[in-house]
């Protein structure tokens, strides 16, 4: 193609291409650099003595011979650090809420098994752990209620006396007159759904390294965080250090799934200790600590009831939810993040007039719950989609047809749900159809029926849902929260060598943002992919950023990158117009070359940069401008990302093991930046959702001890647990934001638990049982079948 070819629109674009991830070479060759790979000279290690009591007063701490272990440098409990730090307070404007203060070590009381109590600092982690064995903590056990149904009672022992209650979250959404609607409803179905506690199990455990610069009196924290900007902002207050003397860097981070997006006690601790001891201090969580000290997920009990007409129209929904939020309200998201979203998303992508959803979030002596891929929606979708299939079964309608009648239709957008969420426009109906077409649904039903005739327990299940992604400043990601989740900033600079730096406060910890954001910039700026260096995960790059979470980075980061790239491009073209003596309207830039419509003359980006920066006087002083821009994007509202999952499973008639035979996801994520990365996100998220459906469960026994303390007991999906996953991309009307992107990082986790639960229920339908608790383990199926068989045989005699 000659540079005179001006069919600009026909030029190949990178957005939409399966560009190989530019971050992969370093990961695949083992030269990624994680916090644990860093060992500055003089570095000390921390090991923590954690509580073995669920709820107890700390009577005394005896360090015994701990200091005699070679290499031990210092030992601290909370009282030693009082003057070094102010607590982080996860405030919220929600009425009735109590913000539990977050300290580096337990003060006075412990509130869950695994809570850090004593920190030992030593020359090696080995020495620190040897010294731990000498520490004796005397506790006075206090009464506690480990289950949410008990903790919510008025006379339950209080975990935080200052709160005056364990129920720190109460929220209700309602529309219409739900009770009357139910009184008059021809058909109702109800269930008591339980989404048990999960944890993220990122491959890299949480790791923190703080370095104190004695000369500048400044602190650098290297953290495996998904939100370094948030951590900088909160620690600035806790440690009384201005942003200029506090830098928070998230280097390569090995996955977060939401769980590394909150502030942790250990993160505060290493900072305090590095400043106190004037030496670098590192803490790396081991897997045992990860399973008992990293934020956990879900843990809701959902009593929900759905009213429908005989012809399959939804009338109303009412639900009462108790969310077990653990011992603390997490910073900054608060305990409302997970819990409130369960009831705000419960009505799903459906048209429905009458709704009432109530949630109570209660404190229990367990690790705090926090963000986890999908937040709230895996639970709400599980409950709602079970009800949808129960209702369809009750009126004898095919569940696909039932959904088709109730999913919001194209002409009804924007649609305001019963809880007040606005679905802008998204391919709700098309996704349902897309999934069905992919598997040839009528044929799949015949296959299932044939298998059943042969005595096999085979079932089909679906789940349709929508989520709100790329949320701007109009609504806070968690209700009433004190941080800004509505904007992101991109700073793009072309330097004197013609190289382009694109800096973001976002962090990429598996999402491939270094690639996708560069793709967006290439198309906007007209440069080469390899000339762009995407920087991220560093609080010093932009004034403020809240990081990567809530399916926002492609939308907000991509939007900001687009805006900044446009400004830079305009500056490049103005400089080139002067240098080439052409009118700016006649110029364009593609692949790093600026060409004119009217001549064969071209300039490279490098030449323009050199003229601007290096060749003094080449551009007159009053016209010369740096080729830089910093732009902030605020999409204001959010955009719906929708999907339907469809799966066929088989339950072994004797062992009750569940095997997934087919799986398809049809989803609308707006304009796709990189289909390969989108596929990868879907695959990973579905695997995680299958984990939630069949395997993963954090279990605390009645004594408050966590009994799933290793990966032999907390079962994550392995390769053989995950089937081939068909993916249908539906690019319907693009959302009304810069770039037309929707967020899609979380979706798979939202749909899979519900779809699998529905399929297993379908497979077991002839036995009179259905799934109400996830994960649906062989043991649970055994118990369900036994419980229904016992009374049945009693009746027949």
């Amino acid at each position, binding site marked *: 193609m000659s540079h005179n070819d001006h069919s600009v629109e026909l030029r190949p674009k990178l957005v939409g291409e399966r560009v190989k991830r530019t971050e992969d070479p370093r990961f695949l060759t083992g030269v990624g650099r994680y916090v644990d790979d860093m060992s500055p000279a003089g570095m000390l290690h921390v090991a923590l003595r954690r509580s073995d009591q669920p709820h107890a007063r700390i009577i005394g701490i005896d360090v015994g011979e701990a200091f005699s272990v070679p290499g031990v440098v210092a030992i601290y409990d909370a009282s030693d650090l009082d003057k070094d730090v102010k607590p982080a307070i996860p405030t919220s404007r929600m009425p009735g809420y109590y913000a539990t203060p977050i300290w580096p070590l337990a003060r006075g009381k412990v509130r869950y098994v695994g809570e850090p109590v004593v920190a030992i600092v030593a020359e090696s982690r*080995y020495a620190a752990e040897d010294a731990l064995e000498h520490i004796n903590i005397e506790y006075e056990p206090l009464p506690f209620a480990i289950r949410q149904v008990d903790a919510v009672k008025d006379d339950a022992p209080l975990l935080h006396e200052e709160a005056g209650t364990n129920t720190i979250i109460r929220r209700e959404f309602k529309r219409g007159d739900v009770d009357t609607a139910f009184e008059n409803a021809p058909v109702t179905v109800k269930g008591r759904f339980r989404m048990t506690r999960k944890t993220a199990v990122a491959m890299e455990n949480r790791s923190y390294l703080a370095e104190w610069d004695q000369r500048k009196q400044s602190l650098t924290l290297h953290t495996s965080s998904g939100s370094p900007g948030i951590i900088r902002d909160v620690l600035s207050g806790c440690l009384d250090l201005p942003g200029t003397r506090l830098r928070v860097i998230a280097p390569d981070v090995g996955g977060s799934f939401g769980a590394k997006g909150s502030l942790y006690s250990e993160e505060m601790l290493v900072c305090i200790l590095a400043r106190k001891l004037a030496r670098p201090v590192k803490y790396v969580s081991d897997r045992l600590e990860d399973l008992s000290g990293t934020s956990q997920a879900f843990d809701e009990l959902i009593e929900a009831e759905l009213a429908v007409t005989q012809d399959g129209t939804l009338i109303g929904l009412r639900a009462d939810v108790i969310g077990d939020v653990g011992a603390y309200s997490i910073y900054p998201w608060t305990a409302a993040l997970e819990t409130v979203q369960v009831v705000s998303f419960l009505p799903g992508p459906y048209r429905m007039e009458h709704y009432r959803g109530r949630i109570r979030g209660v404190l229990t002596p367990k690790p705090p719950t926090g963000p986890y891929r999908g937040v709230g929606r895996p639970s709400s979708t599980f409950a709602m989609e079970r009800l949808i299939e129960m209702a369809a079964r009750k009126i004898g309608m095919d569940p696909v047809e039932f959904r088709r009648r109730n999913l919001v239709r194209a002409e009804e957008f924007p649609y305001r749900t019963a809880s007040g969420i606005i679905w802008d426009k998204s391919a709700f109906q098309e996704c349902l159809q897309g999934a069905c077409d992919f598997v040839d649904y009528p044929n799949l039903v015949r296959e299932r029926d044939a298998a059943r005739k042969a005595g096999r327990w085979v079932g089909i299940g679906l789940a349709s849902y929508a989520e709100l992604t790329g949320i701007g400043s109009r609504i806070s990601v968690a209700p009433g929260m004190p941080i800004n989740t509505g904007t992101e900033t991109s700073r793009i600079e072309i330097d004197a060598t013609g190289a382009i730096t694109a800096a973001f406060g976002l962090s990429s910890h598996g999402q491939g943002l270094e690639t996708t954001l560069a793709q967006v910039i290439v198309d906007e700026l007209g440069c080469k992919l390899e000339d762009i260096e995407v920087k991220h995960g560093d609080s010093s790059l932009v004034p403020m950023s809240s990081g990567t979470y809530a399916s926002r980075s492609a939308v907000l980061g991509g939007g900001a990158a687009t805006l900044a790239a446009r400004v830079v491009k305009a500056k490049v073209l103005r400089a080139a117009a002067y240098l080439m003596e052409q009118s700016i309207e006649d110029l364009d830039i593609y692949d790093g070359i600026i060409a004119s419509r009217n001549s064969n003359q071209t300039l490279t980006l490098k030449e323009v940069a050199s003229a601007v920066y290096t060749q003094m006087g080449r551009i007159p002083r009053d016209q010369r401008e740096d080729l830089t821009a910093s732009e902030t994007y605020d999409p204001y509202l959010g955009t719906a990302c929708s999907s339907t999952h469809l799966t066929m499973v088989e339950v072994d008639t004797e*062992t009750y093991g569940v095997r997934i035979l087919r799986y398809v996801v049809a989803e609308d994520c707006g304009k796709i930046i990189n289909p390969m990365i989108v596929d990868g996100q879907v695959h990973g998220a579905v695997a995680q959702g299958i984990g939630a459906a069949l395997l993963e469960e954090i279990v605390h026994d009645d004594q408050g001890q966590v009994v799933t303390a*290793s990966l032999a007991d907390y079962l994550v999906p392995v390769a053989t647990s995950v089937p081939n996953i068909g993916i249908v991309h539906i690019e319907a009307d693009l959302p009304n934001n810069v770039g037309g992107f929707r967020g899609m990082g979380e979706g798979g986790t939202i749909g899979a638990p519900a779809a699998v639960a529905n399929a297993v229920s379908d497979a077991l339908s002839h036995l009179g049982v259905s799934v109400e608790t996830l994960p649906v383990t*062989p*043991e649970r199926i055994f*118990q369900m079948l036994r419980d229904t068989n016992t009374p049945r045989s009693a009746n027949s005699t």
Partner: protein
Amino acid sequence: MKPAPFDYLAAKSISEAVEALAASGGDGKIIAGGQSLMPMINFRLVKPTILVDINRIGGLDRIEKHDDRLRIGATVRHHMTATDVLVFEHLPILQDAMHHVAHLTVRNRGTFCGSVCHADPAAEMPMMTLLLNGTITAWSVRGERQIAASDFFLGSLVNALEPDEFVTSIEIDTLKPDTGWGFEEFSRRQGDFALACAATTLRIEDGVARSVRFALMGVGETPLRLAAIEEIIDGKTVSESLLDQVSEALNDFLQPNTDLHASADYRRHLAGALARRALRDAWKRADLRKGKTDD
């Protein structure tokens, strides 16, 4: 999750290993593949004063056939057992079993003898050793002794070795060409320890089962070789009604544990179901292999 301090010796010979064990006064441990020991010392569940590494001792990394027995040396890895030609030809049931053991990385390091010594009640190799009339050869400064598999497994993770004994090899039966086998295991995920597992071998003579071996694992404190079940089957045709009898008998006398992954009742149920499947398979295979002999 760091181990307490310990000494380490890379032994070059059996005698060096057993001398080091004896010198440690019972606080030393052999390390073979380390796939069970390392997690235990990292959790500080055990704190040996010295680890005696046997991986550099020559001659122990072999599977050999002696008459109708296979001898498996102390550093034979799971991967080798799973892919060995002698095992393929003479012990297809062991090959089946090895497919259920862990994952590739673990199989590349873990050893058959280490697994038997570890004596996990839900591990395949202890059960196979019991099923196949295994003999464990142990060395110490006092010399060599043989321990029958039936005397070896004393409890969960408890074996009959003295603290200073070193297992150099284990011998197990091969299968006769006319022997059918069945191996049925159920675990939460591929490669996990079994919730329950049944293994059986039998021959068909004059239309009835003979030379019956039957074992279970995951349903007791040790792997179980069940003579009572073998007697029920011996001399009978494996029919659905016989299988009913087997699962009823199992139901009556199994006393499995309840743990996080399975209740005692579910384990009992599973044992019955897996026993039926394994016996059906064994009968079918014996039928196909009827009349075959070594030639």
